[in-house]
């Protein structure tokens, strides 16, 4: 029985919110702490074979989102100057812009580009790194049924689906349990 267990509940399935659980889990496991992530509700999309490729984010309901153009765009002559001007005028994409068709895809692609320019790993890469580091990834049984996801719809290398009681019991068995909700 390990003395420490670090467990994260990943409940969100947008591109931005897929990052915190994966970064923390892969790092904790690399630091030698037994680590598990319980994927529930929309968090299941992070470990869904198809949906992981299409995680999106939106400016709507996300007022904290900065107006951040990818560095590679900002270095381009005219587009870069325009981007700089927009960034000066607006702290973030206006909420109303979210209703423009294609805006979610646009914002998602801008974020992906920004992350790539900054050397931040992709969600798929981080999931692989979690596996390599030995993170136990547990899909939530109940929400799998709720959303109609089968075990074979999910990526390889996961633990068998589990329930809330099993997960909490697994965490609390350790001398030093730590539980985090994302």
């Amino acid at each position, binding site marked *: 029985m390990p003395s420490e267990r670090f467990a994260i509940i990943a409940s969100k399935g947008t591109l931005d919110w897929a990052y915190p659980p994966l970064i923390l889990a892969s*790092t904790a496991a*690399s*630091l*030698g702490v037994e680590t598990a992530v319980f994927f529930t509700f929309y968090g299941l999309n992070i470990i869904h074979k198809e949906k992981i490729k299409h995680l999106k984010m939106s400016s709507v309901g996300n007022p904290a989102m900065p107006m951040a153009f990818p560095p590679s765009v900002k270095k381009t002559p005219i587009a870069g100057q325009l981007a700089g001007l927009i960034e000066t005028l607006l702290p973030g994409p206006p909420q109303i812009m979210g209703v423009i068709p294609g805006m979610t895809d646009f914002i998602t692609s801008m974020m992906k580009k920004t992350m790539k320019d900054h*050397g931040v*790993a992709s969600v798929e890469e981080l999931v692989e790194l979690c596996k390599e580091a030995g993170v136990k990834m547990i899909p939530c049984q109940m929400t799998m049924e709720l959303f109609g996801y089968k075990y074979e719809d999910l990526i390889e290398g996961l633990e068998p689906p589990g329930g809330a009681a099993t997960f909490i019991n697994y965490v609390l068995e350790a001398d030093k349990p730590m539980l985090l909700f994302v």
Partner: protein
Amino acid sequence: MAGITADKTLDTSGLNCPLPVLKTKKALEDLQGGQILEVISTDPGSKADIPAFCQRTGNELLETVEEEGKYIFYIRKKA
């Protein structure tokens, strides 16, 4: 430069949190106990994160060199 001879060098230039730590952990797996890994990073976060990683995992951080926006760490693998 430090007068330390590394057995292996890992260049994580351009990569951001948590990649330098994850790659450091992986690179250490290929070394024998007592051997020295040199890690190059441009991520300012690694200045605190690599020492934290070493403290946690029991690998010894021999020296940290800062030069021109680069951090170079010398880590001796736990025996």
